[in-house]
C-alpha cells in the first residue's frame, strides 16, 4: 500500500514531546494530540432531531458529543455504517480529517483554557461530558470536558498549528508537558 495511506498530522511539525515552560515542580498542563479514527458530523433532517438523538444514544461504542442544535460529533462508528442507519433522517458528514483534536489536562488546564474562551468552565457550570462551541484566540473550537481537569478541544485542521502556538504560549507560566 502507498505511503499516502499513512495519515500525516497537521501538528507533525509543531507538537514535539517534552517538558516546556516554567520548570519548577510538576507541569501544570499536559497536552496530547489525539487522532480519533473517525469523527462524524451528524445533522438531523427537519423534525428528526429526537429520532436521531435516540438512535445515537443507543449506538454501542459510539461517543456522541453535542455540536449544535440537533447536531452531534460522533466517534466510533464508520461513516458508511452510520449513514446506512440514519439514511433519510440525518446527514452524516465525515470530518475525521477536517478537525484536529487536543487533550488539555492537568491542574492548570482550566486556567489555560480560560485565557481563550468566555465560557465559564467552573464545574458547576460546565460539567464533565458537556460540550460547547466557542472561540479561542480568534479560532472556532469545539470544547468538551472529559474530566475534572481534563478537556478535549478540536479546531479546523488548517488552524491547528496556529492554535497550538497560542495554547503552548499560554501554558508557559504553568509549565507544560507534551506527551
Amino acid at each position, binding site marked *: 500500500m502507498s505511503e499516502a495511506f499513512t495519515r500525516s498530522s497537521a501538528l507533525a511539525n509543531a507538537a514535539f514531546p517534552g517538558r516546556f515552560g516554567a520548570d519548577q515542580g510538576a507541569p501544570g498542563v499536559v497536552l496530547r494530540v489525539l487522532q480519533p479514527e473517525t469523527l462524524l458530523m451528524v445533522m438531523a433532517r427537519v423534525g428528526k432531531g429526537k429520532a436521531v438523538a435516540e438512535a445515537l444514544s443507543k449506538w454501542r461504542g459510539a461517543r456522541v458529543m453535542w455540536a449544535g442544535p440537533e447536531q452531534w460529533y460522533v466517534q466510533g462508528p464508520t461513516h458508511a455504517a452510520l449513514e446506512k442507519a440514519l439514511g433519510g433522517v440525518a446527514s452524516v458528514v*465525515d470530518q475525521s480529517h477536517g478537525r484536529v483534536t487536543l487533550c488539555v489536562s492537568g491542574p492548570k488546564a482550566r486556567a489555560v483554557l480560560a485565557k481563550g474562551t468566555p465560557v465559564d468552565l467552573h464545574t458547576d457550570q460546565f460539567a464533565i461530558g458537556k460540550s460547547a462551541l466557542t472561540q479561542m484566540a480568534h479560532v472556532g473550537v469545539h470544547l468538551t470536558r472529559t474530566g475534572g481537569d481534563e478537556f478535549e478541544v478540536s479546531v479546523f485542521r488548517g488552524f491547528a498549528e496556529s492554535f497550538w502556538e497560542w495554547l503552548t504560549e499560554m501554558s508557559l507560566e504553568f509549565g507544560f508537558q507534551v506527551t
Partner: protein
Amino acid sequence: MTGFRLDRGGLIDRTQKLDFSFDGASHSGFAGDTLASALIASGRQLMGRSFKYHRPRGVITAGAAEPNALVELRQGGRKEANTRATMIELYDGLVAQSQNRWPSLDFDMGAITSLASSIFVAGFYYKTFMWPKSFWEKIYEPLIRKAAGLGTASQEADPDRYEKAYSHCELLVIGSGPAGLMAALAGARSGVRVILADEGARLGGSLLFENEEIAGQSGFDWAQAVIAELASMSNVTLMPRTTIFGWFDGNVFGAVERVADHVAIPPHNIPRQRYWRIFAGKAVLAAGAEERPIVFGGNDVPGVMTASAMRHYANRYAVAAGQNIAVFTNNTSGQRTIRDLQSHGLNAFAANIVDVKGRKGVEAAVLSDGSRVHCDAVAMSGGWSPIVSLMCHRGARPVWNDTLSAFLPPDVGPQFVAAGSAAGKFVLSDCLADGAAKGTLKGKVLATPKCRDETFEITPMWWVKQSKGKAFVDYQNDATAKDLPLAAREGYNHIELAKRYTTTGMATDQGKLGNVNAIAILAEATGKSIPEIGTTTFRPFYTPVSFGALAGPFCGQHFQPVRKTPLHEWAEEQGAVFVETGLWMRSAWFPQQGEDWLASASREVLATRSGVGLCDVSTLGKIDVQGKDAGRFLDILYCNTFSTLAVGKARYGLMLREDGIVMDDGTTSRLADDHFVMTTTTANAAKVMSHLEFVHQAHFPELDVTYTSVTEQWAQMAIAGPRARETLNKIIDGAALDDVNTPYMAAREVTILGGMSARLFRISFSGEHAYELAVPADFGGGVARAIMQAGAAFRIVPYGVEALSIMRVEKGHVAGGELNGTTTAGDLGLGKMMSTKKDYIGRMMAGRGGLVDPQRQCVVGIRPLDKKDKLRSGSHLLTRGAKPSLANDQGYITSVAWSPMLKIWLGLALLSHGRTRIGEVVQVYDGLRNQHMLAEICKPAHFDPENARLHV
C-alpha cells in the same frame, strides 16, 4: 530642608535597600517604597513639569490620580512615558527620567511661556496664528506641535509578552479598603464565587496608611487578618495590582493585572501584564474617595499636596514632605493630618492660606490675615470626591450631595452598587457596615466589627479669590481658576464646552482632582448651582491602560491566526513561496534557482499548458449540502438552476446578493439525488457559509436541508494540462478515465492508489483538460507526492496561484478583481445565467434600471497596442485622444498578466459600453506611475477562445 525619611515606622523594609536613578542621579530607597516616596525621602520634591507653562511640579497625591509626578520609566523598548511616580513600586536598578523639559528638569527653557501667560489664556490659539496664511504651515503649527505632548514614546518594539483571560464570579469587589474587605468577606462567607481586585501593590486600601482601630486592633492588623481568611477560601480570588478600568454592557468589567511591573524585567515565562474580562453577577464598587485640592495661589508649588497624601507618605512610607507643614483644609481631615504628622515629631499646624511662596519648593505661606508663615510643605484638603467613575461608564450621571459637597454614584441597578466612601460614607463604621451589607448576597448581613470613628464635617470652599499667584484647577494642563469664568464669558458656558475650551479634566488624570473644583467655579461664574452645571461624561479608562495589555498575544505574526492547507508541507518540499490570502498561506510560485516570481510563474504555465501541472486548491470553500430539498435550496441561492443537474455532474453557479449584485461563484456538483457539494471562492467561503445559514434559517426554514463546511476535510488539487488524464490514470483504481466515464463537467466518487476513496471533478479554471481531485486531508501530501511521481514522465510541475491567475486571465475567467462587490451578472458577461423561471436571492433588485443600464462598465479583455508595453492593474481607460478628466473616465483595468503563451501583457478591464467596443483602441491612463499607452479592447478570452483545449 525638604523631604526626608522618618527614622521609625512605615510599611517599608529598611533591611532591603534598593538603588535607583532619576535623571541620571543615583538614589536609594527601601522595599515597599514607591518611586515618589523614595524621591521625597532623598530630598527630591521636584519631579515634573506642567504641560503649558512648564511649571516645576512635585507630587500632589500618593496614588492613581497623580497629575504632576509623571516620568519616563525604563529604557529602550521598555521605555514607558507618563508613568505615575506615585504608583511605581520601587525595584532595584530602577531607571527613570523626567519629561517635558529642556534642557533639564531644574532648568527648563519651556518655562518662558509662563512669562507670556497673560496672553496664553484658554483658547488663545483659536484667535490667532491665522495671518499670513502661509505662516501657519511653516511656522506657527510646527511651533505648536513642538510644544505638544509630555513624555517621549519608545520607537523600539516592546520585548515583553502580554496575555488575555476571561473570569467569572458572582461577586466582584473593586477596592480592598475597609468597605471592600467587608464586602468580600460577606460574599465569601456566604459561599459565592468572589473576586477582590485592588489596583494597589498591597491589599488594604486606606488601612495601609490611616491610623484606625478595628475590633480592638489596628486597622492594618485587622485588614491583614481578613485578607488571610479570604486567601484561605477556595471560592475567593484575590487580585492585587489589578485595576478595574471600565464597566461595560452585560456587567462585563475590563481589568488589567500588572503581573510583573514591579520588577525590572518580567521573569522568564511570565507576561508583563494580563488583561481580564470579568463577567460579574454582581459588583460592589468600594473604590473609596479622592481628596480634592483647594484652588489657591501657588497650590502647585512642589511640597504642596493633599492632606491624605501627606499622611500616606508619613504613615506608610515613613517619609516626611517637610519639617514645618502648614495644613489647610475645609473639612475634618485636617485634624487627622495634624495629629498624624505631629505623632511623627513634625511641626504641623492649621493655616488659612491665600498664597504659597516658592518656585521649586515651598518657602512660606501668606495667610488670610495677610501674615506670612514659614513652612516647607503644605497639606491641603478641599473635601472628598467619591470615586464614582466606573458606575458612570454606561451613561448614568452622579448625583450632587450638599452636606458632603460631593457627587455621589448614581443608582444603576442591583448588578452594580457602591459601598464605603465610594458611596459617600466618610466614617469608618459606616464603611464597614455598608461593605458588609452590599457584599451579602444571601442569608443575613455579616456583623460589623467595632471601630474608632472620626466625625466628618465640611464647609465648602473652592477658590481663594484673594490669591495673587496662579491658582490651578487642572494641574497637568495648567488650567487656572481664571480660565473658567473666561470660557463662560465667551459663551463656552456649558461644562462640556468649558472642558473643551480650557482643556480642564482632559489630562492623564482625567480631572480626578480638579473637576469638581472646576464645576464649582463655573457654577459661580454662570450664576448656576453645582448640580445644574453637573459633571462631564465619565468614560473608560479609569486609569490609562497600555496598548500591550489590550492587544495581548494578538499582534505581529499572531495578529490573526494562520491557516495552512494539507498540502503545505508538500509545497514547502517543492520550494513554494507562500502568500497570505484571507488567513490562508497559499503557494504562490515554485521558483527554481535564479527565478523571480514572473519567470517561475511563466515556466509553470508553459509546463502545465504543454504537459501537466499540479496546483493546491484546498483553500476553495467546500460546503456539503444534503436533504431532499437540497436542489431547491441551491435554486434559491444561485441565479441559475441546480435542481435539474444530473447526478454525477458539476455545474458553474453564480450567486447574487439580495441587492442584485454578484456575491460569489463556483462549481457545485451533485453526488446523489439529495447530496451536493458546493465550492466557493477562497475569499468568500465564510461569507457564503453564513449566507446559506441565513437564507435557510430566516427565509426558508421549511426546506429539508443540511449544510456544513467540509473545506478542511478535503485536500483538493487541480491536475491540469494535456497529460492530466494520463497522469491520473496511473493512480486511479479500476477503469481508466475517458470521455465516456468522465466527460467534461463530470463529478465522481472514485478510489485511487488501491482503495483510497476520493472525489474527482473534471472541471477547469486554467482552460486546460483538467481535473480536481479531493482526498481526505491527512492523505493530501502523500497523494500529491504520488501524483508528482505519476506525472514525472510528463514533466509534471507544481504551479501556484500566480500561474493560476495568469492562466485565468489568458482565458478571461473572472475572479476577485472583477467580483468586486459592485458588478452584476451582466457586467461579467454572465447575464444569460439569470433564470427567469424561479425566485432566487437578488432576482428582483437585479432588475433595477441602474443595474441594467447599457452605460455600465462591463468586463472586456485588453491588450497593449505596442507589444512591449506593460499593462498595470488600476490604470484607467479613456477614449483615444480624450484628455484625462473625470468626465472622460471610461473604466479601469481590473487584472493583468504577462502571457507566456501569447508573449504579451494581457488584461481584463471594466469598460463602459464595453461589449460594443471590441476592437476599439483606448488610452490607458496611469498617472500614478506615469505610464500611459494605447491598448486594444478585445473579448475577455485571450487564449483558446473556442475552449478546444478542454477536450484534448
